[in-house]
């Protein structure tokens, strides 16, 4: 049907077509039998087409947004907490969608703490954080086989030094695509 409409209006510019379609929605498209079954059939065919375009654009935008979200690879945590803050929902959604759509991709979740507290206890705390991210991704459609967990506790800080500024940047889970 697209071909027919395009052929019929081949002398008009594409922009004219688009404007014509949208400005004259009631004009019948007599030669398109499939569309005649519905009362406003002919030009609604063109409307579907534009909707497709918009959807494609939206999907593209969303893919770009997803890609941008997937470039975020770190989730930060409050002191002594393994609870994922709401601000990471969209980011985790994006990673989970990508993992769901790419079953062969694997990601390692690396849990970390700040320097306060004893070292082996922090290993356990870092694992608890990585586990909470793992559960969040499973819940959103990633599969067990795609996710592995390691905790480095306080052994691999993102930044050296003491104080809340450094500590807040070290309490984290990193997503490492394999």
């Amino acid at each position, binding site marked *: 049907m697209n071909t027919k409409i395009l052929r019929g209006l081949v002398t008009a510019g594409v922009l004219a077509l688009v404007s014509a379609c949208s400005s004259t929605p009631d004009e019948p498209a007599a030669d398109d039998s499939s569309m005649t079954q519905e009362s406003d059939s002919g030009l609604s065919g063109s409307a579907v087409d534009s909707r497709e375009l918009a959807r494609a654009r939206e999907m593209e935008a969303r893919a770009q947004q997803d890609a941008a979200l997937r470039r975020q690879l770190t989730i930060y945590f409050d002191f002594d907490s393994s609870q994922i803050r709401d601000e990471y929902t969209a980011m985790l959604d994006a990673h989970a969608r990508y993992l769901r759509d790419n079953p062969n991709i694997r990601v390692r979740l690396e849990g970390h703490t700040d320097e306060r507290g*004893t*070292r*082996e*206890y922090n*290993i*356990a705390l870092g694992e608890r954080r990585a586990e909470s991210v793992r559960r969040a991704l499973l819940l959103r459609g990633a599969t067990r086989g795609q996710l592995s*967990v390691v905790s*480095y506790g306080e*052994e691999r800080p993102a*930044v050296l030094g003491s104080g809340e500024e450094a500590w807040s940047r070290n309490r984290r889970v990193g997503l490492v695509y394999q």
Partner: protein
Amino acid sequence: MIIRKLLCALLLGLPGLALADLEITITGGQVQPVSIGIVPFAAEGTPDSATDIARVVEADLARSGLFDPFPRQDMIEQPSTEAQVRYENWRALGVEQLVVGSLRQAQGRWVVDFRLLDVPRAQQLLAYEVPVSSAGLRYAGHQISDLIYQKLTGHRGVFNTRIAYVTASGPVDKRVFQLMIADADGYDPRQLVRSTEPLMSPTWSPDGRQMAFVAFENGQSAIFLQTVATGVVRKLTDKPGINGAPAFSPDGRKLAVTLSYEGNPEIYLLDIASGALSRLTRDPAIDTEPAFSPDGRHIVFTSDRAGRAQLYRMSATGGTEPERLSFEGRSNARASYSPDGKTLALVHQDERGFRIATMDVKTRQLQVLSDGPLDESPSFAPNGVAIIYAAKGARGAELATVTTDTGIRQRLSQAGDVREPAWSPFHN
């Protein structure tokens, strides 16, 4: 009393690898140190001309915080036998104890002959001949220090023991980790393991011949066992998840370890010879940092089953419900037993941060020993007199010791991070 002792820099013969000695600072203490004169030992040609044996003894005794060595340059005589000593001279100088000695060859071997003399009573307290082993004069010196220390304090000396520790150096994204062993005075640091991934939790086997530690490889932790003399390393566990916190049983046959492969950090017993595992804890909380009592009957560990990290004690065979030991402050963690089993060393957290404390096992009385705010990893000296731990210093993490009764402190530091000290058992 503040004594600064900068040990000469050493280079170990490893390619491109400079291993710095630990620099020692001694502070504090509520005791009046005993004035002791350690006269240079007489010698005719020595097997090791670089080592001044009297200086080794002097440094050892000063480091204990209990002795104040009389300055060599102020000595008005330098006797090497008791017969040569004029006690009145030393009394006039206020010297309370005197050490004299000589080094001689006997049947092709070197022997150090030394005497400990009580100056006020003009009396000989010790007379020993110490053979010079292949390890050299430094170790003969430490042995002499041990004998003097034991005679005068009643405690066995720890001058011939060693410490293991972990160093981390380099920029944050290119850290290099080393597991090191040095003499208890920071001398002669040797590298056991080097890795670009974290090394953790070194712990000595009860006979001092092996060391268990944690390493990471490609995002997987594992517990290793290394024979110190040969350097041979054996991997003991690399289960999915945590493999951590190894602690030897007193007979050296088992390790208590933390594993999370069954879904949650729990404490297990690992039979070293067979690799067989038996699980000791069952709780959805974190259970970690196990340590055996010296009689092998109990294990203390850290758990946050009540909300925050606290100390618990259970039977070393599991089974019964663990008993909570600590209630003071915000949290208490990483306990280990003193050699006599009567005291725990631990990390106590309150509004002043993380500090080293002891707990009397019977009365549960807590005594804070350090200033914080980020002190961790306490380890008892094998004579139980002092605890070595890690603290934050001006140059990064550094080691410190504190005596449990007199509060005498030492700091052992070098450029870069030095942490997770583990004091060796006695050298047999």
